[in-house]
């Protein structure tokens, strides 16, 4: 018979999702500053990007250092359509997702590459995309697009930052849940097979090329959705917002959080977005410290936060089991 402590420590009871959601929902009680909301909004938006990359990189093993391309596609589509052509916000966002998905499907053939070459190819494409967008007149060139309308449906716009916080939080949770469910079915199994061994996957009857296109398109769609929300949240975008630094930060979220874990992606997004902001006390040194932190963290814990968490709970669990066994023996 399991002891009570053991029961308490089984996955169900320490489900980090429930506690994490509860904590996130209660945070606005403790912090009300404008600074907190700005960082929190950015962190939640980043969590969407990180989740989308987790699907592509963590679940199907396609490393992308160009995810900002898809974010940019979503942000620019909805910004131009809603501001310059006066379309409703939700139409702009939907079209942004569509454009993002089709760009994802277009560059999917690049998935013939693997590992390092894929990383560099996507990185180079991202650099290209930024330069090209900065030179297109009707995308407002290098100066970017100001005065993008806020989120909302028809007359009902989200004005309060608290409201926006909860909207973004629920979006993150819904996306995480949807992606989690998707991966449980045939599609996700095929992706996991791709990550494991492509040749074996192909010999099991999985059309690797087709699934890569699907994975790229779905991941790009989610990232573009995040990008569209970003555009309406911050109301000003320019090409440099989506430079390779953003792509690198997105992959940093996934890896620091833990490759293959949805919760890890969200935690990684919070760490990578929040840490540099809260290091502002150190001013000039903040990015230096952040850079060194990333390097040292990964040199000593290449598995990320998720694997640290897993190891820690296992350790506590086994310590407690041996404790209870000893007490029973006495």
């Amino acid at each position, binding site marked *: 018979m399991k002891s009570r402590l053991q029961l308490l420590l089984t996955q169900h009871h320490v489900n980090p999702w429930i506690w994490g959601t509860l904590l996130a929902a209660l945070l606005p009680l403790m912090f009300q500053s404008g600074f907190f909301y700005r960082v929190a909004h950015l962190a939640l938006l980043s969590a969407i990007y990180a989740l989308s990359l987790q699907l592509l990189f963590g679940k199907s093993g396609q490393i992308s250092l160009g995810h900002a391309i898809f974010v940019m596609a979503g942000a620019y589509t909805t910004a131009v359509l809603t501001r310059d052509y006066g379309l409703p916000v939700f139409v702009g966002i939907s079209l942004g997702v569509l454009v993002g998905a089709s760009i994802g499907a277009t560059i999917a053939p690049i998935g013939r590459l693997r590992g390092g*070459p894929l990383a560099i190819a996507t990185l180079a494409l991202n*650099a*290209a995309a930024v330069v090209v967008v900065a*030179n297109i007149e009707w995308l407002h060139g290098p100066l970017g697009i100001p005065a993008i309308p806020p989120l909302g449906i028809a007359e009902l716009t989200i004005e309060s930052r608290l409201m926006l916080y909860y909207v973004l939080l629920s979006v993150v949770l819904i996306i995480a849940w949807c992606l989690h469910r998707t991966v449980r079915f045939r599609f996700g199994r095929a992706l996991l097979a791709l990550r494991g061994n492509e040749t074996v996957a192909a010999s099991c009857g999985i059309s690797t090329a087709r699934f890569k296109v699907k994975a790229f398109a779905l991941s790009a769609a989610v990232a573009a959705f995040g990008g569209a929300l970003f555009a309406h949240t911050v109301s000003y975008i320019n090409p440099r917002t989506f430079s390779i630094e953003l792509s690198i930060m997105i992959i940093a979220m996934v890896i620091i959080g833990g490759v293959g874990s949805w919760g890890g992606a969200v935690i990684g997004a919070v760490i990578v977005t929040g840490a540099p902001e809260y290091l502002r006390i150190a001013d000039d040194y903040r990015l230096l410290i952040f*850079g060194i932190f990333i*390097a040292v963290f*990964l*040199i000593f814990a*290449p598995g990320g936060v998720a694997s640290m968490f897993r190891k820690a709970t296992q350790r506590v669990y086994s310590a407690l089991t041996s404790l209870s066994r000893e007490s029973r023996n006495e």
Partner: protein
Amino acid sequence: MGDLVGFVVAGIAIGSAYALVAAGFAIVIRATGLINLAHPEFVMVGALVGHTTIVATKAPYALVLILVALLGIGCGVAFERFVLRPMVRRRARLGAMILATVGVAIALRKGAVLVWGADPRAYPAVYPSGFVEVLGVRILARDVVIILIASALLLTAGAVFKWTRIGIAMRAASQDRDAARLMGVRTTRTDAVSLAAGSGLATVAGALIAPIFFARPDLGIFGLKAFAATALGGLDSVVGAALGGIVLGIAETLGGFYISTAFKDVIAYLTMAVVLLIRPQGLLGTVRRNI
């Protein structure tokens, strides 16, 4: 016509600097499998240290280049010892390795701002001024010097890679790490040598181009073009990477002249993007499984 040839040569000069950085990057990938995103920052380090030395000591430029190369080699060895080796030992995956190099890159860039300040610094005149006439075409003497130095370095690197014992060991390690180790190749040593060579090429390239582009902490952007060059030429091919650098240099110089200087970067990157979408492995690369 004379114009065209002149611009092609100018393109080759810039391109050969790209080629140095790109070849160094590709050497590291070939031999260690590491995508070193801190690589472009070594270009910046080379440019700034070269500037400080030349201003402080008035040493001849050739000596400065050698000093900067030695610095790059030192950086490479340190990088292998303190970043790559601990990660290989912990069986870090590719993504984590790439990201650790990003951390180093951020630290280097911000560290450079703290040490040197963010303003660009101009070199004293180090290149011979004026033109050289070759077959009736006027070429900047500066371009000739850059092309000569770059090609000498690239040929030396190629020869080392092809004929020396350590070069053969490096190629063996790049084909199959475990098999090479079983044959008595010390892979930590081949890693160190290839990182040293790669960063050495990058720092020298930095000191070579800084008199044109100024020495400044954000010179790593120049290295970004070198990534594009490597992707264009083929990531697992050192020759391809060098070729990609030269193609990129020519494309942007010609595009800048015949279309518009504003579109210089657009043309360089579009060339690369088109090649990548048609032939993802790059011009001379192969689709390899295990990098």
